[in-house]
């Protein structure tokens, strides 16, 4: 095992993911090597089906790679048991998808509070925290409605709040603007940039929208399960 200190926040070693369904096999990830620094804003893009989502799911611990290793903060993620990975996810990661899923029987702040509850925080405490946190993010106006009554853009914001509540070190966003008009998209992206800037969170953003490819510190282009371009901005 390598020394913890020398590792980056995220490291992928020859990660391969092969899907087999019947006779067809799909090589969704063809040996990815990647190191990501803490505090980095990384934008990931590439044609549909190139393996972006698969990569992200592998990173958050819900898609076990066929081969290779995923290291997060010096932990070899897939040597953990499933429940330990859940715990790890609850404490270290925030995840935002293209469209948000909500627990329909819970209201907005309760939904935002869920990751804290998953980590073992008392429900009341978690909800209080969620309310304060939404004030901090200046989205208190979303409290008045249940999540499903909110507009797409509002739901994305609320989803980001939920991803951030447990103070995760890394935020994964898989096409968070995929369902939004350009105005709402900009608001959401600004929101992510602000979080990266002010809170120093690592952000990994997957997006099809070329407008956003250059907003981060680094952009990675994928094709056929491989990284074909990896550009770091200076400064």
């Amino acid at each position: 095992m390598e020394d913890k200190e020398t590792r980056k926040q995220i490291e992928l070693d020859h990660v391969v993911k092969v899907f087999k369904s019947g006779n067809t096999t799909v090589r969704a990830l063809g040996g990815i090597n990647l190191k990501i620094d803490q505090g980095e804003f990384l934008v990931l893009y590439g044609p549909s089906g190139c393996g972006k989502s698969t990569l992200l799911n592998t990173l958050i611990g819900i898609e076990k790679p066929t081969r290779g290793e995923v290291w997060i903060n010096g932990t070899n993620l897939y040597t953990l048991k499933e429940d330990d990975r859940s715990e790890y996810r609850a404490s270290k990661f925030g995840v935002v998808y293209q469209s948000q899923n909500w627990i329909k029987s819970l209201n907005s702040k309760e939904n935002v509070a869920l990751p804290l509850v998953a980590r073992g925080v008392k429900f009341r405490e978690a909800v209080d925290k969620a309310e304060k946190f939404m004030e901090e993010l200046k989205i208190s106006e979303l409290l008045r409605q249940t999540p499903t009554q909110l507009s797409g853009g509002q739901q994305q914001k609320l989803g980001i709040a939920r991803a951030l509540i447990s103070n995760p070190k890394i935020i994964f966003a898989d096409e968070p603007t995929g369902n939004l008009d350009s105005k709402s998209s900009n608001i959401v992206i600004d929101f992510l940039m602000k979080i990266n800037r002010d809170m120093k969170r690592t952000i990994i953003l997957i997006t099809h929208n070329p407008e956003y490819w250059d907003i981060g510190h680094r952009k990675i282009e994928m094709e056929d399960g491989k990284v074909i371009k990896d550009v770091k901005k200076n400064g």
Partner: protein
Amino acid sequence: MDKHFIFLFAIRNMTFRKLRAALTIIGMLIGISTIVFLVSFAFGLEKLVKNEISNGNAMQLIDVGTGNSQIVKLNGDAVARIKELSDVKAIESISNVAAMEKTVNKDKPLDLSFFVVSKGYLGLSGYSLKYGSDQSLQKGDGPFPVLINEGLLDELKIEGGQAAIGKRIYLDLIVPKQITGSEPVSLPDLEFEVVGIVDGNSASGVFMHKEFVADIPINNFSKLKVSTISVSNIEAVQKQIEGLGFKTEYVGETVKQVEQVFNLFKIILAGFGTIALVVAGLGMLNTLTISLLERTKEVALLKIIGVKSKDIRHIFLAEAITMGIFGGIIGVAFGYFLSRVTNKVIDAIAVNSGGDPATLFIFPFWFVALVLIFAITTGLLTGFYPAIRASKINPLDVIRYE
């Protein structure tokens, strides 16, 4: 995960789909209230029957008789021998004498039972004095003092209650040969004074104290009642008495038989209720499974957020248990309500037709507790399958097919 949240979540989910939760709980309610209603009825009936058999302190008493034997005799000697047995506390006796009343209706004389009893006999047998006094059972120069059974008042055309005290009655006694020990003796036209009225549910009759029988040849007893020092050795004493050649009866045995019959009865009734409960359980399983299918996305979300499989299982189990608890409590309450109403209605009918009100339903605490545990267990059992299925949901399957 916060247990408080798990249960709050369960209740939220139930209230979120009110109608469905209500229907499921009503299913439980029907099963549980059926069990409560039927089995508490069995308990009530059992108590009534047991009371009927074993009034007074019958549970501590052995009845001693001779059976059909012509050889063994229940006489003073027998009493002395039984008294010598260890653990025997007291022996009371009764001798049956035939009596005839001719004054009330001259054309049709009235046959009645006349009992000569030892002092403690009536008390041990569960008779109680309603009017008059035992203390006045003292032989003076006048007529023999007797106690008479309430049921006899009518037949003797004596006004009931306190007014009956001091009334005179005239009887012909025929002491059978079993009692005299030799030839039957007939004693016409004896005068008696009613000094007390006893209630009691067995055959109506006249009771006289043994101390006053000097004039009447009573040498044998029809029956003895033997009480023991403690209930625990009653069966040993019973064996010893039988060893002396007597026939014995112990109400406890009858009560045990009654209990056995009723236990079977209860099991059958509970069985009916259980069938209803199983049907309710299937309804609940259906509800939970449908709700699981509807909430697959929600479960996937919880998993991605980092909720452990164990907690997801607990969330679904909590929902099932909560429904079980609600169904159980409401079911017990409803079963209780139903039986109260039924009891009231039956009482009203009974009173109308001259009967007495009775407690037909009994709810032992342990039974109610057991039913609640049963309801919660049903919830738990029906919750297992959906809970395990929920915990196995792969979040990726949900994300992928958005």
